C-alpha cells in the first residue's frame, strides 16, 4: 500500500503527513509541478499555505498540474484525503461539498481538540473503532490538534441536509470544541461516492505519544485497510469490504 503526499510551494505539514503515512504503509512526496502520481494507492493533500494562500485558501493549488491528476484519480474512485489546507483545496476543486470560511474568532487558532467519529465505516475511519487513547467510553472520540485561520465549515441548508442524510458528515467537533464556528460542528466530510475526504484537524500530528497523542493514526490505518480491502473490488466497495476489514482493525486497535 503506497500513499502519495502532495507538496506545493507553501506546504507546511507535508513531511508530517509523510511520516504518519509511513507508520502504516509506504509513502512518497509528489511535487506539485508533476502530473505523475507515481503509482500511489491513496493521495493525501497536506496542510500548510499552498501558494501562500493568495486569493483564497486553496484557490490556486487546485489548478496545479498534480491536482489535475488527483482530480482524475478521484473521479476514478481513488482514495483522497485532504487535511486542513488540503481540505480547502479539495473544496475549491469541487471534489468535496461546501467551503471553509475564516474562523468565527477571526484569528489563527491552535488547540488540541476532541473529535467524534460520526461515520465509523468509511475509508478513513474504519480502523478508528477503539482508537481513543483514553479508553472504552471515548472509543470513537479522538484527541487531535487543530490549527488554522480558515476552518469554519459552511454549506447551504439543502446541501447540509442531503449530506447528513447520505452520511457524508464523517467527523464532528465534540460538544464545546467547535472554536471556528463550523455549521453543525462539522470537522470532516466525505463526497457522495465515499472515496474523497477532508478534515480541518491534523491527524498527522497525532501519531506518536512523544508528541502528544496517537489518535490520528487510525485515520491512516483505515486508509490502508480500505485500499487493501478493495484492491480487487470496486472503489465504492470501500464500505462493503471495509466492514469485514474493520473487525480486524478493531481487534488491532483493541490491543493498544
Amino acid at each position, binding site marked *: *500500500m*503506497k500513499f502519495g503526499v502532495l507538496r506545493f*510551494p*507553501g*506546504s*507546511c*505539514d*507535508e*513531511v*508530517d503527513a*509523510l*511520516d504518519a503515512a*509511513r*507508520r*502504516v*504503509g*509506504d509513502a512518497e*512526496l509528489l511535487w506539485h*509541478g508533476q502530473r505523475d502520481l507515481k503509482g500511489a494507492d491513496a493521495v493525501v493533500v497536506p496542510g*500548510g*499555505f499552498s*501558494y*501562500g*494562500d*493568495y486569493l483564497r485558501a486553496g484557490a490556486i493549488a487546485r489548478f496545479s498540474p498534480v491536482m489535475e491528476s488527483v482530480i482524475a484519480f478521484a473521479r476514478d474512485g481513488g482514495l483522497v484525503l485532504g487535511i486542513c489546507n488540503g481540505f480547502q483545496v479539495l473544496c475549491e476543486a469541487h471534489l468535496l461539498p461546501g467551503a471553509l470560511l475564516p474562523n468565527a474568532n477571526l*484569528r*489563527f*487558532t*491552535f*488547540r488540541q481538540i476532541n473529535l467524534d467519529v460520526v461515520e465509523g465505516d468509511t475509508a478513513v475511519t474504519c480502523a478508528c473503532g477503539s482508537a481513543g487513547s483514553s479508553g472504552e467510553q471515548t472509543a470513537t472520540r479522538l484527541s487531535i*490538534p487543530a*490549527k488554522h*485561520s480558515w476552518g469554519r465549515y459552511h454549506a447551504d441548508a439543502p446541501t447540509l441536509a442531503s449530506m447528513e442524510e447520505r452520511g457524508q458528515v464523517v467527523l464532528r467537533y465534540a460538544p464545546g470544541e467547535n472554536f471556528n464556528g463550523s455549521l453543525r460542528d462539522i470537522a470532516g466530510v466525505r463526497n457522495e461516492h465515499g472515496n474523497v475526504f477532508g478534515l480541518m484537524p*491534523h491527524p*498527522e*500530528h497525532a*501519531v*506518536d*505519544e*512523544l*508528541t*502528544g497523542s*496517537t489518535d490520528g*493514526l487510525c485515520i491512516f*490505518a483505515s486508509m*490502508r*485497510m480500505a485500499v*487493501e480491502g478493495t484492491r480487487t473490488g470496486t472503489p465504492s466497495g470501500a464500505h462493503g469490504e471495509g466492514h469485514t476489514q474493520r473487525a480486524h482493525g478493531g*481487534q*488491532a*486497535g*483493541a*490491543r*493498544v
Partner: protein
Amino acid sequence: MSETATLPTVEDALALGLTRAEYELIREKQGRTPNQVELAMYSLLWSEHCAYKHSKKLLRTLPTDGPSVVMGPGENAGAVDVGDGLVCAFKVESHNHPSAVEPFQGAATGVGGILRDIFAIGARPIAVLDSLRFGEPHLKSCVASSREGGERAGKEDGGGAAGAGARSRYLLDRAVAGIGHYGNSIGVPTVGGEVYFEGPYEQNCLVNAMALGIAEREQLITSAAAGIGNTVLLFGASTGRDGIGGASVLASAELGEDDDKRPTVQVGDPFEEKKLMECSLELLQHGLLVSLQDLGAAGLTSSASEMASKGEVGIDIDVAKVPLREADMEPFEIMVSESQERMLCVVEPGNVGAVLELCEKWEVGGAAIGTVTDTGQMRVFDAGELVGTMPVRALVDDCPLYDLQPAKPTRTPYPAPEALLPQKTTPREALLALLSSANIASRRPLFEQYDAIVQSRTVRRPEQSDAAVLAIRPLGEAGVSGFSTSGPNPLSGAALEGARAGGSQAPGTPVPGIAVSIDGNGRRVAADPYSGTVAAVLECASNLACVGAEPLGTTNNLNFANPEKPHVAWQLTEAVRGLGDACRALRAPVVGGNVSLYNEGASAGPIYPTPVIGMVGRLPDARRAGRLGFARAGDTIAIAGPFAPHLGASELAKLWGWDLPDGLPPIDIEEVAATQAAIREAVRAGALSSAHDIAEGGLAVALAECCLGGELGARVSLPADLFGAEPAPATGREADWSGISAASASVPTMAGTLFGEGAGGFLISGGERELHALGERTQVWIVGSVGGQALRIDCPAPSHGDSRTGGERIECSLADLARAHGALAELFA
C-alpha cells in the same frame, strides 16, 4: 567615476545619522569627499545597529568558548553540538523600533529576519520563540485593578474613547498577529516565549524573536566570500524602496513622537521566505554554494561588505543587474534597500546554471550581480559605470568604537508603579490579584495564535513545562525535517502499537531532545542591573533543569536606552558583567546575540534595561522531559533549593505600588547551579512527577500554576520562618498585612514567604522517598501533598502568637484559580 553629480555635504552626513567627526574620518579613509552612494553605505555600516559602536568593547568580555560550541559570535547565528553529528543553531534578535511604528509588519519581519539568520548558516529552522514588552494594558478583569480601574482609565486618557492601555493593547494584538502570520505560514513552530507589561515600555515596546535550527555539522556554511573570480549571486524577492535607512535612521536613534517613520519599516511575505528557505537548503544539499549570507539591516550594502570582509577579499556589484520591483531606483537606493526575503551567495562560475535552475524550481528569482575580486575594495557599478568604491576594511572594521561613561544614578529614573492593590488585603486576595495580573496571567490567549507543533518535534508545548522541548530527529526526506521512518510495515496490531510508541524508534530507545527557554525580567534589572541579569540567566537554566536539560549555550538581546547617557551606560555595563559571570558559572557560553540601544521615547524616558536571555540545552531522552503540573494525587510536594524570597522588585511589590529598591540581595550563582544540576538529574532519572521553577509571584503563585497545570488541588502548610535564613528583626516578624514596608522587604514575613521572589527555588512533587533523597543534594522542605479540587495553603503564624496577626489560610477552588489566571482573554476578545 562620473564626478558630474554634486557631492553630498557634511549636513547630508548628519542627516544620515553620522557625526561630524565620523564624516571627517570617512573623508580621510576615502582620501576624498565621498559621493552619494559611498556616504549612504558608510552611514549604514557605521550606524550603531551595524557597528555596535557603544557595545563592542563590553561584548568582548563575554565567555564565548566551550566544549559544545561549534560556531561562536560573528556569524549569522551561533551553533552548539547536540550529538549524533548534529548541531543546533540559534540566535535572538530585536525588531523594536519597527514594531513600535508598525507592529504587525515590524514583528513579522523580525521573525523573517531571525529565520534567515538560521538557514543562512545551513540549518533548518525548527522553532521560534518571542520575547515581548509593552506598556500596562490595564486589564478590567484584574481582581486588583477592578476597584480603581474604572475612573483611572478616564483620567489618564482625558476620558478619551480609547481608554487606558489602548495603545499597549493595540501593539500587543498586532505584534502577536504579525509573529503568528509569519511563523505559522512558513511551517516553523512557535514553541515558547514571554511577555511583560510595564509602564516604561509604553512608548517603546520591545519585540525580540529567537529562532533555532538544526543541521548536520558538515552542512554548516559561513558567509566568508572566497575564490577570486567567483560569481556573487542574489536570489529571492526583488528589490524595492522599502526599509531604506532602517538601520541608521530608525534603529539607531531615539523614537520621536511626531515623526512618521513608517516608510523605513519593511514589509514581509512569509510565502516568499518559505520558498527562499527550501531553495537555500536544497542549494546547500547539492553543495552548490561557496558561502551564503542573508540580507537584513542595510540590505546589499552590509551583506556584500561583510562577506568581503570575512573572506578578506573585494567584491564588485553591478546594481543594474539587481531585479527591481520599482522603476528608476537610484544606485544608492538599490544598495541600501531593506526589501525582505533575499539572500546573497558566492558561487563558482561553473555552478551558476545549476543554482539558477533550483531557483526556478522553487519559483524564486535569482541573478548574478557581481564578482569576488582581489582588490580589497567594495566597488559599485551601474551598468558597467563605477559609481562608488570603498576599502572593505574602512567600511566594516574602521568605524570608531566609543567608550561608555557609566555613572550610577543618584536616584532611580523610573517612577513607582501605580498602586493597584491596597496594602491591607488578605493573602487570598493577593494570590488572586497576582494570578490575574498582566505579568502572571496565563499566556494561552497569545500562544493559541501560534502553531506550536508543525514539524512533529514538539514534545512539550507551552504551559506543559518551564522550557519547550523538541525531539532531535535526523534530517530526513530532502532535508525537509527529520524522519527516519522506514518503508512499509504490515498493519498488524503490533505494528499499530509500534507506530504509536514512536514509529521509527524501537520502543525503549532514548529520543534525544533540545530544550529552550527565553527570559528577562526588566524590573529586576532596573533595581539591580548586575543581580537582575544574573537572575535572568539563572531563570533560563532553572527552566531547562525542570525538563531535565543541561545548558549548552546562550544567546542574548541587550535592549537598553540611550548609551550616551551615563546611567544607561552604567546599566549596560553592569548587565553585561552579570551576563558574563552567570554564563561562565553555568558553562553556557554566549554564542551569539544582538544589541538594541536608544530604546526610549522622547517624553516617556528610558525603558527598563532589558537583557533578554535565550538558552539552549540538551536532554538525553525527551520521553522523560519534566512537566510543571502536579501529576498524581497523593504525591508529596516540596520546595527545593537555596530559596531566599524577598519582596523587592517583586510582582506583589508592583501591585502595592512600591518604589524600585536600590539593589537586590546577592545571589550565590554556584549554589543555584548545583541545585539545578540536582533537579536536572532527578528529572532525568524519572524521580519527580513535576518540577516548576518559583518565579514571578513567588511560592503561592507557583503552587497555583502547578495545580492548574495538572488540574489537581494541593494542601500545603508553611511554617512562618520557612525561609528565615536571615534572622529577622522583631519588627519584621510581625506579619501584619497592612504594615509591610519597603524597609522590611527582605524580611521573611508572611507576605515575603508566600509572594517573595528570588533565584534558585523549585516546586517539585513526587514520592516522599525520592524527595528526601534529593535532600542529600540540596535544601528540601516537604510542605504538603497533591490532591482534591482546591489549593489550600496554611500560612505562617508568627512565632510569638499575636491574635491580631494569627495564622491565615488561603483556600481557592481550581475554578477560582483558573478564572483569575484567564485574565488576558479580554485582550483578544
